Every structure is written in C-alpha cells, then in structure tokens.
C-alpha cells in the first residue's frame, strides 16, 4: 500500500519536473535577444520544412473535409427544407472548429514528429553537444528557429485549410447538389463574422501551433539517445500534442463563447 502511494508520489514529482524542464526550455528559447540577421534564414528554412512541405496534406484534407461536411450537412438540412443554409453551416463549422483543430492534428503528425525525430537524432549522434563545443548555442541555432517556424506556419496553414474546405463545400453544394451560388455565399456572409469566427479560429491555431512545436522540441531535446528512445519520443510527440490540441480547443472555445 505504502509502496503504491510512494509510486504515485514519484510519478507526480517526475511529471512536475518534466513540465518544469519543458517550461524552462520554452523560456530560454522565447525570452532571449533575437539575432535577426542570423536567425531569419534559419526561420525561413523551418517555415519551409514545417509549413510549405505540409501544404499538400493540408490542402487535400481541407478539400475532402469541406466536401464531406457539405454532403452530410445537405443530407440533414434538406429534411428541414433549409438546404440554403448549407453555406453558413460549412463556413461556421470549418472556421470555428474543424479548420484549426484538424490542421493542428495534421501538423502534429506531419511536422511535429519530424521535428522530434530530427532533434532526437541530432542528440543521439552528439551533434548538439559538438555544437556546444564549437561555442554555437544549439538552443539558438536549432531549437529557436523550429519554434518560430511552427509558430508562423500553423496559422497560415489553418487559413489555407479554411479556404480550401469552403471551396470544397462550394464544389459539392453548388456544382454537384445544385444549390444557388448566390444564396450559398450571401447566407454565409450574413452569418459569419470576421472577428468572432475567422479571427478567433486563427487565435486558436496560433496557440495550437506553439504548443505542438513546444512539445515536439521538448520530446526531441530530452529524448533518450537511442533508436528506441527516439521512436518513443516521436510517438509521445504525436500523442501528447493531439491530446493537448483537443483539450486546449475545449478551453479556448469555452473562453471565446464566454466572450473571454
């Protein structure tokens, strides 16, 4: 019995310590004097690796999610004779929820896992410690650009996802199911508010982006420097960042609906 309690206590202390280490890592990356001249090209490379290379999966899933939501929504709305409200249905569900959340989940799988694996391997092959030997700060050279790269890419990807999904819905609703294009857009415009729906969705995606790269960087930086350790770290990145995304999504939605 007392052994179980001790194990619980040890687990609690370990988790807290891990959280503290992750917090310190974030603190050391974020709160430091930026060196724009050296940092900018590195951040660009990471925006390319995390953002541009994720575009394909984002665009394709956005298109199909928009089309599926339109199809499902039409099927239900037509029972109430409210098929004209398909535009608002799709636009609101995509900009408010599906856009930020699905983009974040895909981003965690596509970019987060890659970041963890890359940094974990750098650590296992002692590239990070050799950088320190050469008086290059790995936090500044390796970690910070990846954090800012994810921070920048994620909202951009979410914007693109939203737009593509809405055009996917347009494709299904107007071109295939034969709704009126004017009603589709004008109903959408009357019910979607730029600040409440679009901007709040983007705020969500900024938060998700930061949290996902943070988790990915932490898992990579403190990964056990073995092949099994890197595999575990990559898995944990995807699991933790997906859970964090969904949990934070609820908290943020509750805050936004409550008007902050």
């Amino acid at each position: 019995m007392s052994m179980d309690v001790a194990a619980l206590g040890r687990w609690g202390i370990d988790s807290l310590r891990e959280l503290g280490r992750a917090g310190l890592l974030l603190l050391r990356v974020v709160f430091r004097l930026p060196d724009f001249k050296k940092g900018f090209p590195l951040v660009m490379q990471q925006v390319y690796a995390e953002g541009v290379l994720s575009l394909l999966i984002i665009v394709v899933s956005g298109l199909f999610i928009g089309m599926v939501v339109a199809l499902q929504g039409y099927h239900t709305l037509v029972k109430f004779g409210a098929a004209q409200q398909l535009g608002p249905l799709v636009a609101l569900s995509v900009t408010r929820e599906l856009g930020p959340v699905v983009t974040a989940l895909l981003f965690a799988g596509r970019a987060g896992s890659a970041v963890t694996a890359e940094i974990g391997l750098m650590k296992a092959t002692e590239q990070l410690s050799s950088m320190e030997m050469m008086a290059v700060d790995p936090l500044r050279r390796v970690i910070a650009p990846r954090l800012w790269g994810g921070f920048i890419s994620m909202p951009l990807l979410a914007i693109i996802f939203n737009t593509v999904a809405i055009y996917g819905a347009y494709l299904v609703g107007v071109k295939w199911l034969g709704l009126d294009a004017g009603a589709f857009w004008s109903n959408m415009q009357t019910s979607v508010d730029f600040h409440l729906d679009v901007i709040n969705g983007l705020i969500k995606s900024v938060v998700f982006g930061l949290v996902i790269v943070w988790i990915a960087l932490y898992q990579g930086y403190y990964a056990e420097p073995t092949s099994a350790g890197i595999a575990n770290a990559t898995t944990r990145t995807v699991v933790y960042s997906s859970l964090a995304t969904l949990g934070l999504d609820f908290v943020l939605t509750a805050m936004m609906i409550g008007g902050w």
Partner: protein
Amino acid sequence: MLSQRTIESFVGLFLLAAMMALMVLAFKVSGLTSFFKPKSYTVIAMFDEIGQLKVRSPVKMGGVLIGEVSSITLDPQSFKAIVKMDIDHRFNEIPDDSSANILTAGLLGDNYIALTPMYSQTFLKSGSTIEDTHSAMILEKMIGQLIYKLGGGSSSKASTTTSNTSNASDSNKIDDSNHNVDTQKRIQK
C-alpha cells in the same frame, strides 16, 4: 538540400497563398466590407418593433439587395427603434414616400428591410427619413392573438359541457377546439 534562395521563394509563395486565402475568408466568406465601403447614402427609418433585425441585415427593393443596415438605436423619448441604413448610391432615385417593411426571409431566415417604392417625384437623399414604416411580425404575438381569439370562441361552447366531469368531456373539449382551429383556418383561407 535546396538553396536558401529557393527556400525563400517557396516560403514567399506560401505567405502569398495564405494572404490570399485570408482575403477570401475576410471578404467572400465573412463579407467584411467595412474596409472598402461602396459609395452609399444613409436613410433613417423609425420602427415600433424591429424583431431580429441586426446591423448588416440586408435592405432590399423588389427582392434585390440595395444596401444594408448600418446602425440600430433606441430613441429615448418615443421608444422607437431608429434604424439607419446605407443604400448604394446607384439607387438614388427612390421616391421619398416609399414604405419600409421588416420581413423575414423564409420561415427560419433572417429579417431584412424591404422598401416598397411609391409615386412621389422627390427622392430619398442622405439623412432623409422614411415615414411609412411597418413593424416586424413577431410570431409569438401572432400565436398569442390566435390563441386569445380561439379561447374567446370556445369558452361559450365549453360552458355547455361543464356539468360533465368525466375524462370524456375533456377529450370532447379538445375535439371542439380542434374543430374550431379547423374552421378558423378555413375562414382565413
């Protein structure tokens, strides 16, 4: 490994694509028009009851969109709703004795203002007031009036069966009132 220049061009394209997508979200999806307002003039109308009318609700004439509601306030003296609407400057020859109705688009749709043109030779201009206004229909009030009328009609009939206290009389009453609703509907038709 791609050269820095290639990477930067890709990132630039990515940023451009995202900005264009944001423009689409802003103007096409959420209809954000406050940055580039089309030229318009403001007309005022006072309503007793505006129902679910909101700022940015459409203003239509003959079913065609000609403007939108720009502000809604309550007059502190007369307690009427003051609705200001921006009307596209292309439609600058609307007679000033036109009437303004608040209608509902479909059964579940949003409210909008419908202007009905009349025959005056003077036209609405910026700041002028539409005198002839008709309030929004409130469904609850209409149902309330209907029930009130039905209640008044059926009470005399119901009094003939009050001596009967069994359940059957209750169902009779219901039948009676159903019958009344039917006749009422027929009369309305």
